[in-house]
Structures are given as C-alpha cells and as structure tokens.
C-alpha cells in the first residue's frame, strides 16, 4: 500500500510542477504588464518602463524562455517573484492562503459530510418523504451556478436584514475592520462573516454528493453481502453502516477528486461575490491588472489543493477498500 501511495504522490508532484509552469507560460504570453504603464500620467519613457519591467522580470522584450528560467530559479527556492506593483507575492500569499483555506476546508467538510449522510439516508428511505424532499432540494441546487447561489444568498440576507431592522447576516469581507472586542469577540465576528460564504459553498457540495451517494447506496442495498450481514445477526443499523455505507463510500471517495476542481472555481466566485481577500479573488483581480507572477502563484496554490484532495481521496480509498491495502 505504501508503494501505491508514494507512486501517486510522485505523480501528483510532477503534475503540480507542470500545471504551474503551464499557467506561468500562458499568463506571461497572454498578459502584458506594459499596458499598465501606458495609462499613467505623466506617461513614463519607454526606457524607464523597460528598466522597471526588467527589475520585475516582466519585460516582454526579454525572450519568454529566459524570463521563465529566472522565475523558475526563484520558485525553486520558494520565492514566487514580485507583483506588478513591486511588492512580494509571497507576503500576499501568506495572508490570502489562510483566508481561502478557511473557506475551502469548512465548505468541503460541511457540504460533503451533509451530502453523504443525507444521500445515504434518502436511499435507505427510498421514495419516502425525506427522499423526495432531499432529491428535490439537490436537483434545484444543482441547477443553480455557484455565482448565482452566492448572489441569491446575499440578496436574501439583505432582505432579511431589512425586514429585521438590524444586521442579522453579514455578507461583506472576512472580518469587521479595526474591531476591538477581545479574543472571543474577534472569533465570533469572523464566524459571522464566514457563515454565508461557507453555506454558499457547502450547498453546491451537498447537492452533488447527496445525489451520487444516494445512487451508490441504492446499488449496494440490494446486494447479497448486506443480506448476509443481516442473516448472521447484525442489527439493521450495523449492517447498513458497516457493510452497506462503507462499500457505497468507495466510489464517492474517488468522485471527490473530480468535484474538488469544480469546487475551487466555486470558491473563486464566492470570494469575489462576498468580497473576501483570498486566492480566488486575487486571481480575478490579477488577471485584470496583468499580474503574471500572482496568476502563476494562484494556479500553483490551486494545483496543490486539487492534488491534496486527490491524495486525500487515495488515502481514504486505501482505508475503505482492503483490496488496495493488500494488493
């Protein structure tokens, strides 16, 4: 099993490197930081712009391969270069990665767990009221793009706040600026800010996973080994949890990797709509400001996240399916 995991890990590392390189090359050839200087007044001389771009390793007069070599050399030592304004990409990343991870982890854990639990329960109670309600809810959410989910929740929050006459739900930023409320006050404030974006993300995850888990569970419920488990005297609950759910989780765990990529895009939209200063919103902002190094850094982060999810699902897979461990 360890060999299996190590092989996968090496494969993922290679993919991360290639993905980041691709993103850098794409960004460096498609985005042009020079344009930023053309709109400045007084407009700087071409020599001055060249000098500045050279300093940032962003000059489009230098061959792409040469720029890439310099950038790659820095990245190997852990330095992602400078943004178009000359500040360090790493400094920005340190703040933004935490912001994004908070959202991603909370949204995924909440959404996937709720989805699996609800989907499995719905399968057990097939065609019951709970099944019909959860299926209806999942289908409706599946039909709504992540952006629209985020906006709709925001609109509902504005309406609720208006109806209640006070701010019940917060939908802007990740914390109240310059708040002085002690440790617990700050935590409470952050949680309040986190609530809506997390729900927006988790809803999408819930819909996907509950549908998938319901189908997988239905496939397993009628199988012989569940009947055998009941026949040898296990309670219905134990048979369902230990034999049916565990087996039905295996395909879901593999599926997790695929949905995670979609989730990352969803995070981008959610951050942007809720005005969070995370990696996703940085991506959209840095494309607008032709910030090549920031774009490459964000793609690296996203690739690492997707690969971490893939590795996590490999681990879960090995834990759930004994055949992997033995083989």
């Amino acid at each position, binding site marked *: 099993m360890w060999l299996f995991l190590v092989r996968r890990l090496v494969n993922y590392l290679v*993919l*991360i490197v*290639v*993905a980041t390189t*691709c*993103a850098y090359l*794409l*960004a460096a050839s*498609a*985005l042009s930081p020079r344009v930023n200087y053309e709109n400045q007044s007084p407009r700087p001389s071409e020599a001055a712009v060249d000098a500045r771009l050279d300093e940032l390793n962003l000059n489009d007069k230098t061959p792409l391969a040469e720029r890439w070599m310099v950038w790659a050399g820095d990245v190997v030592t852990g330095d992602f270069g400078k943004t178009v304004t000359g500040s360090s990409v790493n400094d920005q990343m340190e703040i933004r990665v935490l912001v994004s991870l908070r959202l991603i982890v909370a949204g995924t854990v909440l959404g996937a767990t709720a989805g699996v639990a609800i989907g499995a329960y719905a399968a057990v109670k097939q065609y019951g009221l709970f099944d019909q309600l959860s299926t209806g809810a999942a*289908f*409706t959410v*599946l*039909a*709504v*793009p*992540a*952006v*629209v989910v985020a*906006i*709709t929740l925001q*609109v509902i929050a*504005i*309406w609720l706040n*208006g109806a209640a006459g006070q701010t019940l739900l917060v939908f802007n930023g990740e914390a109240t600026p310059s708040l002085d409320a002690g440790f617990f006050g700050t935590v409470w404030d952050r949680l309040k800010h986190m609530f809506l974006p997390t729900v927006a993300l988790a809803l999408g995850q819930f819909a996907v996973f509950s549908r998938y888990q319901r*189908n997988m569970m*239905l*496939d397993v419920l*009628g199988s012989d080994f569940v009947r055998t488990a009941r026949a040898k005297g296990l309670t219905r609950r134990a048979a369902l949890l230990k034999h049916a759910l565990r087996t039905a989780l295996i395909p879901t765990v593999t599926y997790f990797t*695929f949905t995670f*990529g979609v989730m*990352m*895009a969803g995070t*981008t*939209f959610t951050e*942007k709509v809720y005005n969070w200063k995370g990696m996703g919103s940085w*991506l*959209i902002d840095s*494309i607008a400001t032709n910030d090549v190094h920031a*774009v490459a850094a*964000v*793609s690296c982060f*996203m*690739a690492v996240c*997707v*690969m971490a999810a893939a590795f996590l699902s490999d681990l879960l897979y090995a834990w759930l399916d004994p055949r992997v461990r033995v083989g």
Partner: protein
Amino acid sequence: MSMSAERTAAPDAPGEGPAPARTPGRWSSVLRQMLQTRRVVFGVVTIVLMVVIAWVGPLLSPWEFGERDYAAFLQPPSPDHWWGTDNTGRDVFVSTMVGLQKSVIIGLLVAVLSTMVAAVVGAFAGYFLGVTDRVLMWITDLLLVLPSFLILAILYPVLRDQGWVVFVALLAAFLWMVTAKMVRGMTISLKEREYVLAARYMGVPAWKIIFRHIIPNMSSLLIVDATINVSSAIIVETSLSYFGFGVQPPDVSLGSLISDGAGQAVTHPWTFVFSTGLLVLLVLAVNLIGDGLRDALDPQSKRRA
C-alpha cells in the same frame, strides 16, 4: 450493453388476433419508458416551451433588441414593458429572451463538441493502451488540475474579438475530461467483446473499429453525458460571463444579464429575477431529462427505478 439483450418481446394484447408480435426496437422502448417518467415529460415540455418563447417572444414584443426607451429607465413591469426596463431603458423581456437564445445555443454546441472530443480521446486511449493511453490520460489529468476558469480567463483577452464561436470552442476544450475517463474505462472492457475481436481478425483497421464498433456501442453513456454537459456548459458560461470573461456586449447571455441585475436585485428585482429564474429552470429541465435518460438507457439502474 449489447443491443439484443435489451430487446424484449412486447406482451400480446388480449383479443388482438394472431397478428405477429412486433418486437419494439431499443430506441422505441427507451422512448416509451422516458415518456412514462413524469420528470422527463416535465423537462422536455419546459425546454420546448422555453425554446419557443425564446425565439418567438421577441417577435411578439413591440420592442426591438437593443432599442432604448428614453422615457422609461428602471421601470417595473407594466403593459408597455412586460418585464420592466433596465438602467439604460432596454426592455427586460426582449433582452432576456435574446440572452436565453444565446445560452441555449452555447449549451448545446459546447455539449456536442466536448462529448465528441471525449469519445475520441477516451476510445483511442482505451483501445490502444500503452504509450497512447499514457500520453492522452496525462493530458486529461493535467487539464483537470489546471483550473479551467483560469485558462479561459487568461486566454479570453486574446480572443475577445473573435466572437462567441471561439468562446464555445474554448468552453468545449475544458469540459471533456471526466467523460473521456469514463469512455476509456468502457472501451477497455468493450475491446474484449467478440464483435470487436472478429472485426480485428478480419483485418479492419483500428480507427475503423473505434468509430464503427466501439463508439456506437457506448451511445447510451455518451447521450447521457452530452445531456449533463449541456447543463454544465450553461453553468460555466454563466459564471464566466458574470465576471466579464464570457459573452461581451452588445451580445447578451443569461450570465451577463444576471451580472447586470445582481447589484440592484433588492431595489429593482425585475432586472434580476427573470433571468435567474429562467436560467435555473433551463438547467433544471436539462438535468431532469438527463436523469430520466440514464434510467431508461442504463439497464443497471432500472432496478432502482
């Protein structure tokens, strides 16, 4: 997934005389089963209705697309403007219908294109295995890792002036990966079937076997996936257009309309509610059809239904 296994003799209706029992073909039995499912009927009716009003609606309205009513900015729905007007005096009904047209066209084209790419890539990888498989699957994995949103957003400024057809091609280029993986898996098992072996021993070239025997025998998977891809294409298009990376003015799509309306959704709900509602209804209808198709085409899932 052989054809003959699913042909079932129609039960003879009593008192019908000795007429030879007709064996319904696969597709007619699929059709019958789908029409018996309520959600599929609902989906089909909804989509037909939406397509009809998307193309006929603008003809019925007194307003032209792009025409501005300088006497009415941000007016609520009225007999004059059925769904109200937006901040530049455009009729919301007409622009929503034109946006709906664009979203439907983009969704269909992208789904067909990406499913075709997926079928070819997956079938070639699964049939040849070895180096072909490694290379193709590696590209697939890479595209799954690179956030497609990022690439589309970066490439977009370069291709902005090429119109929405290029946008369709770009969207299709990032939607085929998951289907391709499934096609590959199915091809690996299909290539051991007798009819494929027979064709191979008769000397039929590999590409002909793939297009004539392997891909047609996966038609049910491909049809279901194409349906699902319609809804994902519409969703991706909406998201990109929302951030200004998609359909550009003067063209409109449901995504760009939603982004125009989102800021004033509370004060002027009609600029937001209609486009969002239609979008949700459209994707929901497509998903319901896809779900019903899967049940009708996949013999395994019949058990569940």
